[in-house]
């Protein structure tokens, strides 16, 4: 936000254009001479990336250190006294079925993140392949992929997932949950990456590679993928976030792995037992707080990655 005055001057025209063009060259030099120092300096400017990473790291540390200190078996029902507010023995309190909520959070956070990661990786992987096939080869293939993505993105994914989850409801596991969510997780990455590949295909260096006799797959793997990396990373972060969102939505509706203490299932039990209007504040506050840290962390990381991928944003944000 400290850059806003610069933006104000932007209105006065082409003056700004030349320094802005000069920046990438200068920073390239910088990176070459002193890669690590340059990166640290860059992070100081692009603050949302390290802050976001720090938030995600804190969640990982919470569950790793927590699982060493606390017996996660206590995340099962009937482990402790029911409905205890936070106290010395139960720092996070307990729920109505007698789960120790500290243990639930410690066990549930990585489960929820796992659902997001599995679905996100499948989504971006599939999306990348489809995007390349579609954008690089064009024609009928492209038309079909584009049509599918357009229609698929108009239909609210959660509803299709509800139908799917209702169908296979009996004893769904955490991994199956991830696969269900992954079914639609490729749509958005496909669209975003396809657009990038299309614009990249016309760039001079791709033409040069083609003229110098590289094959299609070779160009994709050696030339285009490395340049796409920041976009892929941003797409992955967004997919993970969307997958977590979809999974807790399904779980809150009661379509999740009933036996597992994921964050979404905790939200379901909160809803099931009307914890909010019974005044059991700790029960709903804890999963919401952790999900808040998770979502804000992912959002900040994606903002930061966006800025790396899209240097035009650098002068503005």
């Amino acid at each position, binding site marked *: *936000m400290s850059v*806003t*005055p610069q*933006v*104000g001057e*932007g*209105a*006065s*025209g*082409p003056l*700004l*254009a030349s320094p802005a063009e000069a920046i990438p060259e200068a920073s390239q030099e910088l990176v070459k001479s002193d890669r690590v120092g340059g990166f640290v300096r860059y992070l100081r400017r692009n603050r949302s990336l390290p802050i976001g990473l720090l938030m995600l790291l804190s969640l990982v540390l919470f569950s790793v250190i927590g699982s060493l200190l606390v017996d996660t078996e206590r995340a099962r029902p009937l482990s402790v006294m029911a409905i205890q507010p936070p106290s010395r023995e139960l720092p996070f309190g307990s729920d109505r079925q007698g789960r120790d909520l500290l243990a639930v959070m410690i066990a549930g956070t990585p489960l929820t993140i796992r659902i997001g990661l599995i679905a996100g990786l499948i989504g971006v992987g599939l999306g990348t392949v489809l995007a390349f096939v579609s954008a690089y080869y064009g024609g009928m293939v492209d038309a079909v992929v584009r*049509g599918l993505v*357009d*229609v698929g*993105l*108009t*239909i*609210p*994914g*959660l*509803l*299709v997932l*509800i*139908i*799917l989850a*209702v*169908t*296979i409801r009996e004893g769904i596991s955490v991994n199956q949950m991830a696969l269900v969510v992954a079914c639609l997780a490729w749509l958005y990455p496909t669209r975003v990456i396809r657009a990038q590949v299309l614009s990249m295909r016309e760039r001079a260096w791709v033409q040069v590679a083609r003229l110098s006799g590289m094959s299609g797959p070779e160009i994709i793997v050696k030339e285009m993928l490395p340049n796409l990396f920041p976009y892929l990373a941003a797409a992955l972060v967004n997919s993970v976030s969307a997958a977590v*969102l979809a999974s*807790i*939505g399904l779980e*809150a*509706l*009661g*379509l999740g792995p009933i036996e597992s203490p994921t964050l979404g299932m905790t*939200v379901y039990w*909160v*809803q099931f037992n009307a914890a*909010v*209007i019974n*005044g059991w*504040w700790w029960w*709903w506050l804890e999963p*919401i707080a952790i*999900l*808040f840290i998770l*979502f*804000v962390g*992912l*959002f900040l990381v994606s903002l930061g990655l966006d800025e790396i991928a899209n240097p*035009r*944003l650098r002068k*503005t*944000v």
Partner: protein
Amino acid sequence: MPIDYVLRRVGFFFLILWLAATLNFFIPRLSSQNPVRERMIEQAVLGGYVHAGMDQMVEEYERRFGLDQPLYIQYFRYMGDLLQGDFNYSIANFPRTVREMLAEALPWTIGLLVTTTVLSFILGTLLGAFMGWPRAPVFLQYVLPPLLALHALPYYLFGMVLMYVFAFKAGWFPIFGAYTAGTIPTPSLEFVLDVVRHATLPALSIILVAVGGWALTMRAMVVTIQGEDFITFADAKGLKGKTIFLRYAIRNTMLPQATAFALALGQIVAGGVLVEVVFGYPGIGTVLFAAIRQADWFLIQGAVFTVIVAIGLATLILDLVYPKLDPRITYRRA
């Protein structure tokens, strides 16, 4: 508006309906069991009030699902029923049809979601535009970070927080429902106020969360557009700042913002469904939640399909309005 553009958009709408209906038909059949029979047995085991219609229902479903018929005949029969708006009976509330139950719930959902979606879009867009404009009041810069942080939360989780603070603790707003239980809906002022009071918290939980997202994209676009030549030119012509802001900057950012709006509809509705569940608001979301709990298969399918139709329609309307925003689209052929 050229006719082929309209036809293409209408065609897209029907494509969505067809795909949604087809998914609705085939996904349940992916598992080799007969979901109807299973659910009926489940219901019977749970015991109780559905017994009366059991035989009649099984017969009806067997006929409809025509398990002796080849798949494509089942498919066409299903599509024919859908075209007539026939979603079958609700399993859990037998003599009532799915259509009846959805017709009751739909006005509440539309009322809540249309109001909140439009309000948050307008508020967020204006806020973002002001924040990106250099001559805007400074305090606006401090509004964005908290709104952006909120934006990361799903509506319904934020709704729980609002509910606890303003309904449970402070007691300013009712906790449950769309109007005070026991009152009879009449077009009186009293009743309208009651409905507004009940809708306030659900609406706020959507608006406060959604505003940040619109503000963020709008702010970025307004900031970017200030570097464009036509803005510089307008400035050099000596146009007033207000004119440049409204007629040059905002006018041009409306196109991508409207596109983003159309794309976000699905997400908003999915989130809204869960807000209804949290507040016990008697819309489609609550019906769907109850249906999932009771394994009411036809009600689930009907609710899902209805929402998809609604979103398809909204998208179609936006598509048809879009050329008004962007005159270039009239000349474009994809």
